[in-house]
């Protein structure tokens, strides 16, 4: 085998040596034959003649021997490659442009592929990840497909099911870390003891959980993420066995996870810092019905998801009969984990990949067009080659080798570009796209690049190759440059390529336009709140049992007072939850008779708890009645303020002020409260209009967890340090959950649209450039091809304007065809973007109009230069060169 390979390589690379050897071998044979013949008594002359005759055609034998080396095809490919490289180097400008064009297209596609591959295609980084599923409860009454479960139900499932090899359970938690210099709130998970072995993950130090860790009376233990160990404990090697205070309870650190452990499901990737066992207390095991837990399971080999679903449905049925109080009517659902993790970003990423694919197509069309232009110039060469016996297939192969060479070099440069593009792209990807921390450029991406390069070489090379090889011998040899029918065919081909390019560019341009439009609207949105220079700090008080809620207000008041006295602070207020950042809490409210809502039925409305200066600080205008005053206190009548949506929706044409609502209707906390004021609507989220909501005074309805907002004289971020000091001076053990600025919150809304726009924007700019180059190149070439014809026109009295019009018209007809086709395609394709758009229709006429205008303008510019050149044609010279 190795021998054979050696022989072929030798045949391929040491051809001349081999030829010599063949010569010598034949010569030796002939000489022996001649000697033999002389020995038989012939004269030298006769002997030589006889030997040659019996050998029978020296060259033919040599040729046949050569063929037997079995490398004829390879030899020809090698020959083609060398010839191709020579031809390309002869026109370095052409080669350079083609390579750059392809490199951009291939690079962009590979970059996006790397993202898609890492996020969507690669299996999750766990043991037998393809068999992992999530199991939920289903409540068909309220159409809830993914209800989280209680530990009690989970262990029933685990004991009864036969479809699963193993099951584990988990829930996101957050804990206050208090025994350190800067207290903080960290995120983590409560898990069953088998969680890590279930995923096939090990500890880098210490151990993961053991079955005894989840016993009710076991010592409290915790496992740290590698990152938390590094940042919080400075990678101290002796951390195992140390204690850490979580929610005031000491936990023993038993292990540190490996650096490559990724929790790709449940929670924002990379956020989880701690894992602790879910204790199997008798209370936890007896509480049924909905719970906070998510069940994970690994299907047995060969068991299909469908089978597991059927089995789980039967188990749910049995539980419903056994525990009707909690489980009646509750089903179960099984979903593959990979789909659960990646499903949400599938469409986004695939749409982006498609958009990048369009750019590659445009790039290929450009290169194809260049190759076609060259083929006209080379028609004489091709004709000569076929006249001396090169078959059509042989010529096509030669031309394809050339485009393959271009694509390979383009692909290699593209791969370089990919690294650079990925470095720029990955940080822009919105946080809710999973697994972005797993994105790498690996061998799969390289194989993909190779495949794309080969595909693009076919895309851009096949049409020109077939076209060129179909050369009309007599015509081409007679007059290479102006074979009329061939060049007309060529022109049609190139023209249709331009139409394609323009159409594809149109689609991208409309996409980018819609996104720009949407982003502008998002920026212009008036949230109904004055968010300038606003700092926001979230604090959750421990709320120890038995503590009087009024005591919270002592803390809040001293916090607000001290913040107010900070130099540079212009106003302070407290609110829960924070508008724009969180949706409002919801509450069942009973309306009085006469209101639009049925008073018997509780109605869900939003509610915020605020300090009295909230409205003035945030600029929420008063419409009727009054704001809260100091007279509204714990001892006085409960009062509320409602927003306009509530007043308009539930008291149409009536005075809302003075009406009484029943708060927490239908619960034991039911309480009547009087409306004293109506304020302007403010948005729930930047992209969601106001809900009917009411405001409670924090004095009358204390809250343990609130946001303090403060308006500052200068950049609010520069006050972070002062705020931290302030809180720890009040209570050294009080962590801050979240410290941010309103601008930051606002920009969270624009992360996604900005990501889409930056991608689409750069893609459509690239497409526009390529399309313009395509139009320019095609027209320039046509003008040079039609020099003679234009010369005749001029000789017959055509003016500059006439020639200009003629050329420009030719280009603009193509552009117009492309724009029309592109508009149709865009109308069909922008529907894919609907979810990305904010207050912009997918068929927004203004956007379509602007995109059309822009494209036509660019096309005009691209037409102008060649047209201008056409007017410079001197009729005398043009006619003489005949």
């Amino acid at each position, binding site marked *: *085998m190795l*021998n*054979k390979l050696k*022989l*072929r390589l030798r045949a391929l690379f040491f051809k001349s040596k081999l030829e010599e*050897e063949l010569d*010598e*071998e*034949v010569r*030796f*044979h002939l*000489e*022996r*034959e001649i000697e033999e013949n002389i020995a038989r008594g012939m004269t030298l002359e006769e002997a030589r003649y006889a030997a040659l005759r*019996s*050998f*029978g*055609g020296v060259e*033919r*034998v*040599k040729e*046949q*021997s*050569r*063929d*037997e*080396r*079995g490398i004829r095809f390879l030899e020809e490919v090698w020959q083609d490659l060398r010839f191709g490289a020579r031809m390309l180097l002869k026109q370095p400008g052409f080669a350079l442009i083609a390579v750059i064009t392809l490199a951009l297209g291939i690079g962009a596609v590979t970059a996006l592929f790397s993202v898609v591959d890492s996020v969507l295609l690669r299996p999750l980084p766990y043991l037998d990840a393809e068999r992992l599923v999530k199991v939920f409860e289903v409540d068909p009454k309220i159409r809830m497909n993914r209800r989280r479960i209680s530990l009690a139900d989970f262990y029933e499932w685990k004991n009864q099911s036969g479809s699963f090899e193993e099951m584990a359970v988990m829930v996101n938690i957050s804990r206050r870390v208090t025994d350190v210099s800067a207290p903080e709130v960290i995120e983590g998970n409560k898990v069953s003891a088998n969680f890590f072995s279930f995923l096939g993950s090990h500890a880098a130090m210490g151990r993961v959980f053991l079955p005894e860790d989840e016993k009710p009376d076991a010592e409290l233990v915790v496992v740290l993420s590698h990152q938390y160990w590094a940042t919080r404990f400075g990678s101290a090697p002796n951390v195992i066995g140390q204690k850490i205070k979580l929610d005031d309870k000491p936990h023993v650190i038993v292990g540190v996870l490996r650096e490559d452990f990724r929790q790709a499901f449940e929670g924002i990737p990379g956020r989880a810092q701690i894992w602790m066992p879910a204790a199997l207390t008798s209370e936890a095991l007896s509480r049924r019905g909905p719970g906070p837990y998510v069940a994970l399971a690994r299907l047995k080999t060969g068991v299909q998801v469908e089978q597991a679903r059927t089995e789980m449905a039967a188990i749910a049925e049995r539980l419903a009969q056994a525990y009707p109080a909690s489980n009646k009517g509750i089903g179960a659902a099984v979903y593959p984990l990979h789909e659960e993790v990646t499903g949400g970003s599938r469409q986004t990423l695939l749409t982006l990949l498609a958009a990048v694919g369009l750019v590659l197509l445009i790039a290929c069309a450009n290169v194809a067009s260049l190759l076609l232009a060259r083929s006209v110039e080379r028609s004489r060469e091709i004709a000569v080659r076929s006249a001396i016996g090169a078959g059509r297939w042989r010529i096509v192969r030669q031309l394809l080798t050339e485009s393959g060479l271009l694509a390979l070099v383009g692909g290699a440069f593209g791969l370089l570009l990919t690294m650079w593009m990925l470095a720029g792209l990955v940080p822009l990807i919105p946080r809710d796209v999973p697994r972005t921390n797993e994105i790498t450029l690996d061998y799969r991406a390289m194989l993909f690049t190779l495949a794309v390069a080969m595909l693009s070489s076919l895309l851009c090379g096949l049409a020109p190759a077939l076209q060129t090889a179909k050369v009309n011998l007599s015509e081409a040899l007679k007059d290479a440059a102006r074979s009329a029918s061939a060049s007309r065919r060529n022109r049609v081909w190139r023209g249709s390529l331009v139409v394609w390019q323009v159409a594809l560019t149109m689609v991208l341009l409309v996409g980018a336009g819609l996104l720009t439009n949407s982003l502008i609207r998002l920026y212009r949105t008036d949230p109904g709140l004055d968010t300038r220079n606003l700092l926001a700090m979230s604090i959750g008080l421990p709320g120890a049992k038995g503590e009087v809620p009024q005591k919270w207000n002592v803390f809040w008041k001293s916090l607000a007072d001290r913040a107010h006295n900070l130099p540079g602070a212009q106003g302070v207020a407290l609110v829960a939850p924070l508008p724009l950042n969180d949706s409002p809490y919801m509450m069942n409210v009973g309306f009085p008779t006469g209101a639009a809502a049925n008073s018997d039925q509780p109605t869900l409305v939003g509610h915020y708890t605020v300090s009295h200066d909230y409205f003035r600080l945030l600029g929420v205008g008063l419409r009727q009645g009054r704001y809260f005053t100091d007279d509204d206190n714990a001892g006085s009548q409960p009062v509320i303020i409602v927003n306009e949506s509530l007043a308009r929706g539930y008291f149409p044409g009536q005075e809302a002020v003075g009406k009484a609502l029943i708060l927490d209707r239908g619960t034991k906390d039911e309480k009547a409260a009087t409306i004293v004021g109506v304020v302007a609507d403010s948005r729930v989220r930047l992209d969601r209009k106001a809900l009917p909501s009411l405001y409670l005074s924090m004095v009358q309805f204390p809250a343990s967890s609130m946001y303090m907002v403060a308006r500052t004289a200068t950049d609010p971020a520069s006050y972070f340090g002062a705020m931290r000091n302030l809180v720890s001076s009040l209570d050294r053990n009080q962590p801050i959950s979240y410290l941010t600025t309103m601008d930051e919150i606002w920009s969270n809304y624009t992360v996604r649209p900005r990501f889409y726009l930056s991608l689409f924007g750069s893609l459509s700019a690239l497409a526009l450039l390529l399309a313009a180059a395509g139009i320019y190149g095609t027209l320039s070439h046509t003008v040079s091809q039609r020099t003679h014809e234009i010369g005749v026109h001029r000789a017959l009295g055509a003016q500059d304007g006439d020639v200009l019009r003629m050329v420009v018209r030719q280009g603009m007809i193509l552009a117009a065809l492309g724009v029309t086709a592109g508009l149709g395609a865009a109308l069909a394709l922008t529907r894919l973007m609907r979810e990305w758009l904010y207050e912009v229709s997918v068929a927004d006429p203004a956007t379509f109009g602007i995109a059309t205008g822009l494209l036509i303008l660019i096309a005009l510019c691209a037409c102008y230069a060649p047209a201008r050149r056409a007017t410079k044609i001197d009729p005398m010279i043009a006619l003489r060169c005949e």
Partner: protein
Amino acid sequence: MKKTQTDLLQGTLDLLVLKTLQSGPTHGWDIAQRIQQVSQDVLRVGQGSLYPALHRLEAQGWIASEWGASENNRKAKYYKLTAAGRKQLEAETETWRLFTGAVELILKTS
């Protein structure tokens, strides 16, 4: 009386070349001579097919070649059987025997 000369059956040339090389490395001319001699001039190898066959067998890996000096001290290309070639020779010999035996059987019956 002149003996009948038989054109070589397609494929048998490979077998003959391999068989000839079994007795030791030699060059193309010698191979042709030996086949002719051993078959008592019944089989005559045309050079037109010998050299392509040698190159084909080499490409298959059944024979290998090296340069050496001939009987009268001239540079000649010597071919020798490889291990794979030896196996191939056995296989082809067996096939040939089976084939000729079968043909013989049919000829006898009529």
